[in-house]
């Protein structure tokens, strides 16, 4: 058996292991992202950066709910022209960096992608799916045609791998994923948060200032996992799983469902920044115990599980 390696390759972007932070989590400051990397993540993802500065929504912007959190930050970010220095800083510190970004139009998406590419990011994550700015920006990922158009426009401005992050708040995520692939996406990140509301019984009003927010954490993991399952069947490009990954078992579930890597966010709230290293260690143990030497060997295995028969006991992992 060859030596166990956790390294993965996402369309030419090589990671020491298949974990990253989810966009929007700890992604504003290079020093904090460096801490995520030092804690064990394979790479880091920045806060979603737009064409101009935004302060985001007023508080409350986050409320804890059963097994998760509901947030409506409202895409606060200092604007791409300011943020390019932060990308430079991250690269100086030796941190593999995925720049998450968004725009209000096809042209803006392309411009921001161009600037982040020039700044030296290793890969781009096109945020087509923030649920909290619908009134101002609309949710791109609701429309397959737009996703294809924006992805193509972005790809024309960059030579970097482009991951398109999709929303679970659509009827048919497979068709949106396919549209991204047709547009030239190098990978699909599945998924952003699930649209929800929390209401305070005492004050008889929605808790979040934005009324609706995005549900993250274990509460939405089965939904996100189903999205990964469907998307990985629909496209040829790699899938990055995102949604409620809290333990190494969650990460393995995502790999088995077809993800080549996972993004971890809300678990930082419950388990701290150390969660990255803990998940990587657990994943390594699982691979060693099960005789896997490379992450790709695990990816998508659950799709092949098949029905119990005398002749397929090994495939069902009953007799090993």
């Amino acid at each position, binding site marked *: 058996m060859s030596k166990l390696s956790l390294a993965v390759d996402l369309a030419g972007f090589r990671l020491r292991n298949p974990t990253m932070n989810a966009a929007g989590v*700890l992604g504003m400051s290079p020093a*904090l992202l460096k801490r995520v990397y030092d804690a064990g993540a394979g790479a880091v993802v920045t806060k979603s950066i737009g064409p101009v500065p*935004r302060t985001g929504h007023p*508080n*409350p912007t986050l409320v804890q709910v059963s097994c998760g959190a509901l947030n409506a930050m409202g895409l606060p970010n200092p604007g791409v022209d300011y*943020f390019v220095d932060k990308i430079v800083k991250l690269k100086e510190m030796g941190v593999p960096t995925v720049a998450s970004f968004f725009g209000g139009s096809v042209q803006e998406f392309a411009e921001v992608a161009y600037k982040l590419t020039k700044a030296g990011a290793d890969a781009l994550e096109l945020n087509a799916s923030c649920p909290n700015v619908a009134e101002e920006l609309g949710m791109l990922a609701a429309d397959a045609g737009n996703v294809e158009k924006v992805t193509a426009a972005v790809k024309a401005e960059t030579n970097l791998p482009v991951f398109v992050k999709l929303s679970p708040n659509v009827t048919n995520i497979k068709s949106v994923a396919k549209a991204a692939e047709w547009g030239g996406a190098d990978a699909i990140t599945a998924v952003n948060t699930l649209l929800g509301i929390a209401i305070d019984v*005492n004050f008889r009003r929605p808790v979040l200032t934005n009324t609706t927010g995005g549900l993250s954490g274990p509460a939405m993991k089965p939904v996100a996992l189903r999205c990964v399952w469907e998307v990985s069947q629909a496209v040829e490009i790699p899938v990055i799983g995102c949604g409620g990954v809290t333990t190494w078992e969650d990460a393995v579930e995502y790999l088995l469902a077809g993800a080549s890597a996972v993004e971890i966010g809300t678990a930082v709230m419950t388990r701290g920044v150390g969660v990255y290293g803990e998940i990587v260690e657990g994943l390594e143990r699982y691979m060693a115990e099960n005789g896997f030497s490379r992450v790709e060997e695990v990816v998508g295995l659950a799709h092949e599980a098949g029905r119990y028969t005398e002749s397929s006991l090994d495939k069902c992992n009953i007799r090993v």
Partner: protein
Amino acid sequence: MPTKLEDTRKVVLTNVISECEGFTSLWFVDQWTVKARPGQYIMAWIPGLDEVPMSLSAIDEGGQSSITVRAVGEATEALSGLEPGDRIGVRGPFGNGYSVEGRSPIIVAGGSGAASLMPLVREMLSKGAVPTFVLGARSSTQLMFLEKLEKLLGDNLVVSTDDGSRGYSGHASGYAAKLMESNGYDHVYTCGPELMMARVFLDADGMGLPVQASLERYIKCSVGLCGACAVGPYRVCVDGPVFDSGMLRDVRGEFGVSKMDLSGKMTRVDH
């Protein structure tokens, strides 16, 4: 179902007290807040307006707790205008709080900073340590908790005002530096304007004294997720708000120098 500390509770204001010029204490009964450690904060929600982090200025005094607000913006003005019987939402307490150490501590408070230090004083006294407390303000009318501190600490309370209207004339940090040079303190606590705290840290660190400083930043999520309150590699909301000497050294380039605005841009710390 019993609430958890991260759940928002409705609390009824039992008392609203004007402390001194510009400062108002809001008193309430809350099952989680009474269990807080000195230096922790709650998120105070004014429904329909905003939710802001507030240090606890009293913890379990006869079952009640308080926050002390300075009206500086829309949310704090609204809080300052509330009356007994009015209701707000609270969640928390959050953050690390002070760790109570030393036999002979000195506490340096500036402006609203005295709020988070009041429960610390009470805890120190209950453990048998009598701190020296430097209470600083711009002017004698803005000395927060002056009478309470006099009652608790007697001569161990010393006052400084920038305009010299009472006590030492000048900055609290300058007065503290003189005291630290001539007395054998073993621990330094500070909360107040960041430039004051940065000065206190610089002086104390130079003398080899361990420091705990309570920092303020825009706190959004309060659970360590969003990173809006980052100072260097730390999150004020969960790694802080109290920074010890090691952490303060790690963030030397930012502490007293720059802070993130609501969009994530670094701006100058100007007070």
